[in-house]
């Protein structure tokens, strides 16, 4: 991960080289490698400026909409359940799922929310049936618990009749913390 910072005074900017040791710039700014939030810095006992992350690779800045690919271009050929774990630990709460189904059969999608180590068996709301050739957004309007924070979620896709053409994709959208 690499982070770029902005400040009105370049001397205040610094990065630690690992995730453990803070970087001390000449002007006293202390910024941890994983510190992505806007941070006020102190110089000589006076709060003088802010530093703020402006770009990041291999991650997302706080308070920006993040897109997580759940599954892309899935060509289902059977009636089995296809399950995908979604790492939602960087999304604060409210989230939505965009489902695009070009399979030639209706797809049923069920979501589950849970911790980093376990997922409950009870789904969040009821299954969403996505017709062939349809794109739908599933979010807090469909199930209140979609606004709750979860370390990870699971999407399960099933087709009651095996599709013979087309694909299905699901992406998760949410605000990074």
């Amino acid at each position, binding site marked *: 991960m690499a982070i770029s910072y902005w400040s009105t005074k370049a001397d205040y900017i610094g990065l630690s080289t690992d995730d453990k040791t803070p970087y001390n710039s000449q002007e006293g700014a202390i910024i941890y490698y994983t510190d992505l939030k806007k941070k006020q810095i102190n110089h000589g006992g006076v709060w003088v400026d802010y530093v703020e992350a402006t770009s990041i690779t291999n991650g997302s800045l706080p308070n920006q909409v993040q897109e997580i690919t759940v599954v*892309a*271009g*899935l060509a289902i050929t059977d009636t089995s359940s296809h399950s995908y774990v979604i790492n939602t630990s960087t999304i604060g709460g409210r989230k939505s799922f965009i489902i695009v189904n070009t399979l030639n059969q209706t797809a049923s999608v069920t979501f589950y929310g849970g911790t980093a180590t376990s997922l409950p068996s009870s789904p969040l709301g009821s299954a969403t049936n996505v017709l062939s050739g*349809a794109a739908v957004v599933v979010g807090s309007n469909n199930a209140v618990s979609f606004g709750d924070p979860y370390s990870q979620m699971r999407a399960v896709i099933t087709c009651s009749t095996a599709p*013979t*053409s087309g694909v299905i*994709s699901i992406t998760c959208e949410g605000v990074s913390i």
Partner: protein
Amino acid sequence: MPRETSQAIEWALQQQYKDILGDMLPVTKTDPMGLSTKVREYFNSNNITYATFSYEDLKPYL
């Protein structure tokens, strides 16, 4: 994946596909919907047996 996957991808990348809005778009390596759709179409047209696959399964062939 079937042994014909590389040929399927090579063919798919020369095709266009109709997206969910009805627009015709060229298939590219970075477009999961288009690429998987056309690879499946190639398998079907050539009577190639295949199991459920996704764009992730195609990446090693790109």
